C-alpha cells in the first residue's frame, strides 16, 4: 500500500479536487465582477458557449434531411472533423515517408551515410518555419496544411525508426540467422518487431507534433477547423468561444493520445518494460 493509495473513490476525489477548486474560484471571481468578461468569461459562459457551438445552428426541419444529419450539423463537429481529417491525412503522408526512409536508413549504412547529413540539417527547423514556403508553394487551403502536418510527423517517426532498426540487438539477428532466416523473413519477423518499440514512440511523438501543426496551419492557410475557429472568434471578440474551442482541442488531443497509447501497449504486450503496467 502506497501512501497515496486508497480506494478508487478517494482517488477520483483527489484527481478532481484542484480542477474543481480552480473552476469555482474562477466562477466566483467572475460573478463578483473582479474579472473583465471580455478578457476572461466565466466557466458557465464558456460551457454554454461550448454547448451552442456543439448544437445544430438551425432548428430541426424534416424537409432538409434526416434527424441524424441535423444532429451532427453543429459547427464544432464540422470543425473537429476538418481538423482530424487534416491530421490523419498529413500524418499518413509524413508518417509513411518517415517510416519508409527510416527503415531504409536503418537497414543500409550506405543509405544512412548518404541521407543522414541532409536529415541532420533539416531536422532542427521547426515545421512552423515552413509556413511561408508552404503558402508560396501550395497556396491556400488543404495542400499547405497537409505539407506542414506531414513535415511535423515525418521527423520524429524517421529518427525513431532509424534508431529502432540500428539498435536491434545483434543476438536476435544471430539467432534468426542460425535458424535459417535471411532477407525478407529477417526483416519482417525480426528487425521490424524488434524496432517496434522505438517506431511506436516515434508515432506518438509525431502525432503530437502533427496535432500542434494542424492548429497553427488552420490559423493561417484555411478557413475551417478548430484552429481557424478560435482565431475567428478572436476577431469577433468572443473569448468564451476561444476557450470553448481550446477545450475541444485539448479533449480531442487527449482522446487520440489515449487511443494511441492503448494501441501501442497492445502491440508491445510482449515488451519487458510494460511488465508492471
Amino acid at each position, binding site marked *: 500500500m502506497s501512501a497515496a493509495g486508497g480506494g478508487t473513490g478517494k482517488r477520483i476525489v483527489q484527481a478532481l479536487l484542484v480542477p474543481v477548486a480552480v473552476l469555482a474560484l474562477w466562477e466566483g471571481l467572475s460573478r463578483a465582477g473582479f474579472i473583465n468578461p471580455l478578457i476572461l468569461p466565466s466557466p458557465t459562459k464558456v460551457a454554454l458557449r461550448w454547448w451552442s457551438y456543439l448544437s445544430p445552428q438551425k432548428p430541426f426541419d424534416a424537409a432538409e434531411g434526416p434527424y441524424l444529419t441535423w444532429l451532427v450539423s453543429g459547427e464544432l463537429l464540422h470543425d473537429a472533423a476538418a481538423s482530424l481529417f487534416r491530421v490523419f491525412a498529413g500524418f499518413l503522408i509524413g508518417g509513411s515517408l518517415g517510416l519508409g526512409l527510416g527503415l531504409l536508413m536503418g537497414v543500409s549504412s550506405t543509405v544512412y551515410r548518404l541521407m543522414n547529413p541532409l536529415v541532420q540539417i533539416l531536422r532542427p527547423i521547426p515545421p512552423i518555419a515552413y509556413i511561408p514556403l508552404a503558402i508560396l508553394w501550395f497556396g491556400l487551403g488543404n495542400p499547405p496544411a497537409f505539407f506542414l502536418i506531414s513535415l511535423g510527423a515525418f521527423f520524429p517517426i524517421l529518427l525513431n525508426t532509424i534508431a529502432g532498426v540500428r539498435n536491434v540487438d545483434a543476438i536476435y539477428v544471430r539467432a534468426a540467422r*542460425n535458424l535459417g532466416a535471411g532477407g525478407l523473413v529477417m526483416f519482417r519477423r525480426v528487425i521490424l518487431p524488434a524496432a517496434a518499440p522505438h517506431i511506436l514512440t516515434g508515432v506518438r511523438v509525431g502525432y503530437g507534433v502533427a496535432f500542434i501543426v494542424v492548429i497553427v496551419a488552420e490559423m493561417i492557410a484555411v478557413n475551417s477547423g478548430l484552429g481557424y475557429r478560435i482565431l475567428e472568434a478572436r476577431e469577433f471578440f468572443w473569448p468564451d468561444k476561444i476557450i470553448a474551442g481550446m477545450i475541444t482541442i485539448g479533449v480531442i488531443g487527449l482522446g487520440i493520445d489515449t487511443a494511441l497509447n492503448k494501441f501501442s501497449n497492445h502491440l508491445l504486450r510482449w515488451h519487458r518494460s510494460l511488465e508492471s503496467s
Partner: protein
Amino acid sequence: MSAPASPQILAEGVDKTFRSPDGQEVVALRGIQLAVTPGEFVCLLGPSGCGKSTLLNAIAGFSLPTAGTLLANGRPVTEPGPDRAMVFQEYALFPWMTIAKNIAFGLEIKGESRETIDRKVAELLKLLSLAEFANRFPKDLSGGMRQRVAIARVLALDAPILLMDEPFGALDALTRRNLQDEVLRIWTEFKTTILFVTHGIEESIYLADRIVVMTYRPGTVKTVVPVTLPRPRDTASPEFNALKRHLTGLVMEEQRRHEEDEIRRH
C-alpha cells in the same frame, strides 16, 4: 573391419586473429585440431579469453576462421545454418513471439506445412515440460524456462549438430543441474552431436564424453580428457572428484596466465 566414422565436426589448423579496439592483433585461436564424431558429447573447457566461444562461433558460421579447414556435417563452414543449431547463454528468444511461435519459427522458415509445425511444436512443448506456457511471452518465464524454450527451438530443426555456448551460465545451481539432465536425456534420445562450451569444470565432467581443455591466448587445445564414467554420473564419487582435481589443475594454469596478462595490460 569398420572404418572410423567420418567426423561430424572437423577442425584442422584453425586460426582466428582479429584486431582489438586499440589496434593490436589478437590471436584468439591457433592451430586448432579437433574431430568430433557423430553422436559425441564434447565440452570445450577453459577460462574466459581462451577462445572457446570463438571456436563455437566459427563452427556456427558467425565468424569464420582466418586460416585452416573447418568442416561441419562434411561440408566447409561458410555461413550460419540450421544444420548447426545454437543455444546461446542469453537465450536469444524473440520476445515478440509467444513460446509456441519461437519454437515454430525455424520450421516456418523451412517451409513445413502447418500440420507438421503444429504437431512438432506440441511434441517439443511436451518434451520440455513447457505445454502450459505455449501462448505466453518470454518475459513471463524464468531463466531456466527460457533456456528450455531455446533448446526446444533448436530441437525443432532436427539439426545433426547442437552448439551450446555456456547455456546454463546465468542459471542458479539447481536449475542448472535440472537442465543438464534434460540435455543428457535429449542427447540420448536424439543422438545429436553436441559441442558444449563451459567454464564449469564439474559441468563438463557431468556431461561430456570428452573434455577439450583450451589454453589462454592464443587459444589452442591444451589437452583432451576423455570421461568414461557411466551415466548418470555421481558428482560425489571418488572417480568424479579425481577427475575434477586433475582438470582444475589444468584450467587453473590457464586462469593464472589470464590474470597475469590482465595485470600486465593495466
